[in-house]
């Protein structure tokens, strides 16, 4: 079972690193990080902060783009090219196929993130900023954010086209970062329907603000370890649920 999932994951990884989209995004991410050096004169004495802010933001944003654009095509492409028949003709269960694809994409993202993080530390070194290992906490929390976003992208990939999947996943991504604001605004609403609906959406949609600790990390604010652990558990729980729904949807398809 685990061997079959791993085989699918490594195959997905190999396939993805041949993807031009991934390479382009990686190059762009490193360019954006590099551009922080150009912005330095405008930073009004806040050079270290700007470079770190832009670097961490670029890592998250470009990895989300990889998850959405590559993840949104993963399952759909297999169905489109009819290669799904070859895979499913082998003794591979459908849930193994979905989990294998997911693990493969997470490996791609982890590798991309590692490359970008090395790039960020290199740029910080060249800028004359003393890089702190504490930045890695923000990177790891971004990876947990991707655990959720990728699961959502895979879920959409099982029943809509890649473009629709990208649009829906981006929508979830943005709403996931605004959920707290929406909840606060809804709390002011006099309508009980709006209150109940907003509370429901707050808990059902992924709350991605749980993973955004970039501001605190850059300013060396001490983070609550309990909150970080809970956020990591939340990511795993949400991703497992989203993948379970993906498996349910995928199992009902006729191949």
């Amino acid at each position, binding site marked *: 079972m685990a061997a079959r999932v791993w085989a699918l994951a490594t195959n997905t990884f190999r396939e993805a690193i041949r993807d031009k989209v991934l390479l382009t995004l990686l190059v762009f991410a490193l360019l954006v990080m590099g551009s922080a050096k150009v912005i330095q004169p405008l930073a009004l004495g*806040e050079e270290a902060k700007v470079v770190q802010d832009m670097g961490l933001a670029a890592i998250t944003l470009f990895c989300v783009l990889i998850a959405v654009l590559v993840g949104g095509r993963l399952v759909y492409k297999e169905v489109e090219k009819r290669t799904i028949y070859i895979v499913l003709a082998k003794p591979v269960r459908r849930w193994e196929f979905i989990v294998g694809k997911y693990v493969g994409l997470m490996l791609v993202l982890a590798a991309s993130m590692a490359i970008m993080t090395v790039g960020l530390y290199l740029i910080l070194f060249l800028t004359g900023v003393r890089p702190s290992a504490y930045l890695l906490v923000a990177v790891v929390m971004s990876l947990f954010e991707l655990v959720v976003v990728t699961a959502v992208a895979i879920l959409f990939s099982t029943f809509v086209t890649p473009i629709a999947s990208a649009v829906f996943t981006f929508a979830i991504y943005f709403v996931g970062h605004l959920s707290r604001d929406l909840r*606060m605004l809804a709390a002011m609403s006099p309508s009980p329907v709006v209150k109940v609906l907003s509370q429901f959406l707050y*808990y059902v949609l992924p709350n991605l603000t749980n993973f955004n600790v970039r501001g605190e990390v850059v300013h060396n604010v001490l983070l609550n370890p309990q909150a970080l652990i*809970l956020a990591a558990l*939340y990511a795993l*729980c949400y991703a497992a*649920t989203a993948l*379970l729904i993906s498996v*349910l949807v995928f199992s009902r398809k006729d191949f």
Partner: protein
Amino acid sequence: MVEEITGQSHRPVGPGRLALMLPVVLVLWGFVGVYLLQLAIDDTRRQGVQERLIEELAYFPSGRFLRQAAVEYQAVAADFVWLRAIQYYGHHLMTDRKYEWLGHVFEILTTLDERFIGAYHFGAMTLAWDASEPNQAVKMLVDGMKANPMAWQLPFDAGFICYMQLEDYEAASEFFRIASKLPDAWVVAERWAAVSMTKAGRADIARQMWLDIYHGTENRALRALVLRQLRHLKLEEGLARLQQAVDQFQEAKGRLPVSLGELVRAGFIEKIPEEPYGGRFFLDGGQVRTTTPPTRRE
């Protein structure tokens, strides 16, 4: 056909009911887990969660940096900062009444969008009365006047703060005069310019000014601030009126009154004024005080 050959009837064997139900139950349990974890996260991060982003803003040395960073979206960025500023204000209004970053946030906000008159107006009033930073409020309004020379609201607010808080009646009169000359200015601006010079520090004028502010805004938070100030004014008036009667009594009789009731019986005051916070006024060795502690005077 197959049945005829094999002589067996074919009934498709589908998955059992349990096999169908299990994934659905697992999905539901997954969401229950997500819900419980989110509750735990909210509980763990309750302290400071609402202020996280506003504190992020506090780290910026000035709004100038944000203005550049926002590229062509300064107005949108200002809108987001505006929402945060309101949240920050509301949060502290309900909790500790400390507004450490309010001035800084409004500086960022008005730098991002120099024409955001509503932000100047609300920011100046809350800075002057809630954060007790009238000088900072006037400075912000003067900066706003440079960017918006035709906006009467800005010099008007500056005049109001100079009159009410800084007690600089000459500056107040000058600000009101500038406001009265601008297009669409309130008619009261000219009147206020005059009274600022002639009736400095009078409670009846102050009350009228606050009422004008109240009726001239749709901002609920600002109206609540006005109501708080009117209540405070009523308390101050009551204390001042009673103290005046006590002093007159002492001058006429050569002794202090036994109680405030004696002032009424002796005809030094018509009746004891109402205490606006639900407490009562009392005499404490020649000084009129109230039973309402300062902490309860919202």
